[in-house]
């Protein structure tokens, strides 16, 4: 709708300058400043509250150590600087979802600053500077409802009040809607690898906001910034920013002055709409939180946190391609979750010295095993590392396939049986006799039986119709239930048939 010629045309005239703010709910057992359990989606409203997260008179906050560690770990994963000491600040504003009338946040001493995040895009690798990551508490949830008597009301659910929230802010380094999406996707992976957040956008565990402005190509000065909110999926991040770029470009073309605004993304209509004008920027009157002493980041503590950070997806992708010889596509799939990547690497390690190559293992992890796990999604075994089939067991099966000792089809069957019964796949192959009939004598017995049972086909072959051999091979394969190698079967069969023909010719 908004720009003649669409996004491409807008981008030829204007350069987008985009900064991204992500709020991620941290994966902790309890809230940020009290002992209340972090509420699951199924909790009844206002069942996870106490004097602290309700902001009752006299209640005081106590820092959740785990939450601090998760932010520090994220900061380290992003290569950010951790200050020797930090503190909390009060951000003062009034709203019914904020029970204290201020939010405990961090103002000028965030837990992490000056980091980087590198990610792939369709135009190649990009790196965005991370300005800061800080820790704060979430607000309560407002639910707008119609009461039984017909009145409209806003209801407050304090279960979310005081949940630990990390805010990660980039420098205005993002230059396209796709980059914004890719950044958010990569950040999600980092958060999950570090274990900082489940970061499900659909469940509000990861909320993405973008500050979008345009400037004419070649210009250095920044344009008027518009904040875009309510983007509830990666797809909507890309769509909303693309829309906003076109909308702003059209306005600039028309000579309109853009207003500094907060706009929401309407997924159904595919447009952004004005939520509020930000002409008068709010004064939050930040000041140091007197209820919490400053926090010193002890070097030994930091070292312990750093030691627990796993290798991150970008590094793993590079290694899979460079060292293991996988395609970038496969490397991307295998690193999409830490469980998958860890499982793959464990299997590769277990396969050391066997015929199972990383490439073959990659195919089985991303293929058959992933299929079994996905089919069981939502059950306790619906994850790649929880199917009951361990990495070494998978590696052993792949080695059997690569050695030619079991067919691909039978290996899949063995895997499916193993998933059902909990046995090792290789043991299934053995127990059910799914392995290849390696012995030519044993195969000869089967071939003889088929020849004896199909005199008509034998006669056809002998009558000069070689296609009858194909039928007989199929019969042997059926009789051996895929345990025989079709090529070998054909060799043995033809040897017998030709031998009989020769004999009769004599």
């Amino acid at each position, binding site marked *: 709708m908004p720009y003649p010629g669409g996004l491409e045309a807008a981008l030829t005239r204007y350069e987008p300058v985009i900064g991204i703010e992500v709020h991620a709910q941290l994966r902790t057992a309890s809230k940020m400043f009290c002992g209340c359990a972090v509420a699951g989606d199924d909790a009844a409203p206002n069942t996870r509250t106490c004097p602290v997260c309700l902001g009752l*008179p006299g209640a005081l906050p106590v820092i959740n150590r785990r939450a601090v560690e998760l932010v520090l770990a994220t900061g380290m994963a992003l290569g950010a600087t951790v200050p020797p000491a930090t503190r909390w600040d009060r951000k003062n504003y009034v709203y*019914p979802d904020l029970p204290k009338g201020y939010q405990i946040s961090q103002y000028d001493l965030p837990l992490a600053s000056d980091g980087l995040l590198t990610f792939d895009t369709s135009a190649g690798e990009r790196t965005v500077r991370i300005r800061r990551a800080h820790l704060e508490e979430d607000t309560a949830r407002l639910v707008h409802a119609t009461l039984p008597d017909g009145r409209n009301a806003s209801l407050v659910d304090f279960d979310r009040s005081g949940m630990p929230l990390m805010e990660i802010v980039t420098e205005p380094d993002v230059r396209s809607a796709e980059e914004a999406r890719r950044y958010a996707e990569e950040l999600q992976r980092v958060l999950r690898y570090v274990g900082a957040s489940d970061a499900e956008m659909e469940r509000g565990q990861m909320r993405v906001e973008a500050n979008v402005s345009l400037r004419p190509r070649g210009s250095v000065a920044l344009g008027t910034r518009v904040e875009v909110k309510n983007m509830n999926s990666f797809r909507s991040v890309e769509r909303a920013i693309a829309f906003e770029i076109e909308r702003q470009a059209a306005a600039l073309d028309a000579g309109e002055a853009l207003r500094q605004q907060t706009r929401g993304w309407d997924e159904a209509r595919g447009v952004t709409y004005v939520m509020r004008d930000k002409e008068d920027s709010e004064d939050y009157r930040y000041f140091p939180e*007197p209820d919490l002493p400053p926090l010193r980041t002890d070097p030994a503590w930091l070292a312990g946190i750093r030691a627990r950070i796993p290798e991150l997806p970008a590094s793993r992708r590079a290694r899979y391609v460079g060292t293991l010889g996988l395609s970038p596509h496969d490397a991307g799939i295998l690193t999409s979750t830490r469980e998958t990547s860890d499982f793959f690497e464990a299997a590769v390690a277990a396969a050391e010295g066997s015929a199972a190559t990383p490439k073959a293992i990659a195919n089985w992890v991303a293929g058959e095993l992933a299929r079994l796990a996905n089919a069981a999604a939502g059950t306790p075994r619906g994850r790649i590392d929880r199917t009951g089939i361990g990495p070494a067991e998978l590696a052993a099966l792949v080695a059997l396939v690569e050695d030619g000792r079991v067919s691909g089809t039978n290996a899949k069957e063995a895997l499916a049986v193993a998933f059902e019964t909990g046995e090792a796949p290789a043991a299934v192959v053995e127990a059910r006799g799914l392995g290849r009939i390696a012995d030519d004598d044993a195969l000869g017995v089967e071939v003889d039986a088929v020849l004896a049972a199909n005199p008509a086909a034998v006669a056809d072959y002998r009558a000069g119709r070689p296609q009858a051999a194909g039928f007989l091979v199929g019969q042997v394969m059926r009789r051996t239930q895929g345990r025989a190698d079709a090529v070998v079967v054909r060799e043995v069969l033809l040897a017998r048939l030709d031998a009989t023909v020769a004999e009769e010719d004599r």
Partner: protein
Amino acid sequence: MIDRDDPIVTTDLARLPAHAMAAALRTGEASATELAAAHLDRIETEDGGLHAWLHVDRAGVTAAARESDVVLARARADGPAALAGLHPLHGIPVALKDLISVRGGPVTAGSRILAGYRAPYDAHVTERLRSAGAVILGKTNMDEFAMGSSTEHSAYGPTANPWDLERVPGGSSGGSAAAVAAHHAPVALGTDTGGSIRQPASHCGVVGMKPTYGRVSRYGIVAFASSLDQVGPFARDVRDAAALLHAIAGRDDRDSTSAPVPVPDGLLSLPASDDEAASALRGVRLGLPREYFVEGMEPGVAAVVREAVDGLRSAGAIVEEVSLPHTDYGLATYYIVAPAEASANLARYDGIRYGLSVRDGDVLADYLATRGRGFGPEVKRRIILGTYALSAGYYDAFYGTAQKVRTLIRADFDAVWASGVDAVVAPTSPGVAWRFGEKLDDPVAMYLTDVCTLPVNMAGLPGISVPAGLSGGLPVGLQLIGRPWGELELLRLARGHEAVTAAAAWRTVEPPGLAALRAGEAPTPAERVAALGAGDR
């Protein structure tokens, strides 16, 4: 032997110090139920003219006292070791300033905006008192949100001073001070943000102590200024104050600013003997800060303080003049820091979840109406002051500068300690209790009365006010200021002062208002104020 059938003698139980009450409980000469009844009866008869109390639940108090008696009886049956294991406050009635949360009970903080609110939890100090076996007698009057120095800023009407029922008891913990002075409770808790325990203690002729910041958990205490607020005891003698401090002090995981500093058991064994107590003064170095004898100080007050200091000197203390050069900035600094913190602390009173809720249209209108009606003028004044001080463009000039000056005030004291001084002695207040209405028109004049106590909060130090004599028939307090965590040393000095003045004539003077209160004929403080034409502020 106390005759328990004699009502007059029973009433006299309330005149004992808490440690004597504790002894009587252990011998069986008195029961906790009788102690509670003696105080409840007094409150019922006399509080009309005093208005020290905002809430007393007779049935609840009686039930709690009976429980204390059950434990006492069991301990008595189990023998001396079991009795000795009871806390000295076991069975002793305690008054709480009405900003301390008591589960299921009201907590108004002297404000209309908390009318109807009932705390769903106990403050840490409440829990500690319960576990010591103390009997919580009720909640005492205070300046709204502890903002004030006279208790005239209570939304529930003023409290009178037992020494002169036409005068204020000081504030903000005026109800607690007056209750202890009037024998309505042997001990009480207050809070001190800029002098709110020490100044009313001085004006009512009782002992009042502000502990080191972090000594007592603030969990469950309605906040005024978080970096300054501290809970502390009132008592009629130093030993009782020490026992109450012992009961409430110590680290609490729910208050991150409470310190993991051990609480000395010596608090429970201050010398009973005056000779022994006085001997603690020998060789002690006391600093007399020249800046605390401020211009405008009442000569009678200065004379009493100097006489008290002479008494300490003659008991062997070495008194030297010291300088705390940034004292002059204390008031200005305090009136930036405290209102700034308060402006945020009081933002939660929005009428949405508890307390007063005035509906006036949309959320913003409800909010304005609730706060407009719920807060009194002094609270509004301080919220405005604090909001202004934190505003963009003013933060550095006000709040930022105040924090720097605060560091300098602390450094003043550090230098004094470094010079080998053990404690600073000073007036608690530059004057005696004033008449109702006298300073209501001039907030700054009221603020100035806290000039000797504010720096102690700014520096986070322990300070105690002990009765030192009378000026014009009204009590004057001597303030002792100690090193961080030096409460025990400070209380020993205070006990020493108490011992050397034990025989002083002024100690025998009964607060003159008590007779009128006992007769139950005194007009209420609100009526007195109304008669002055100063009641509608």
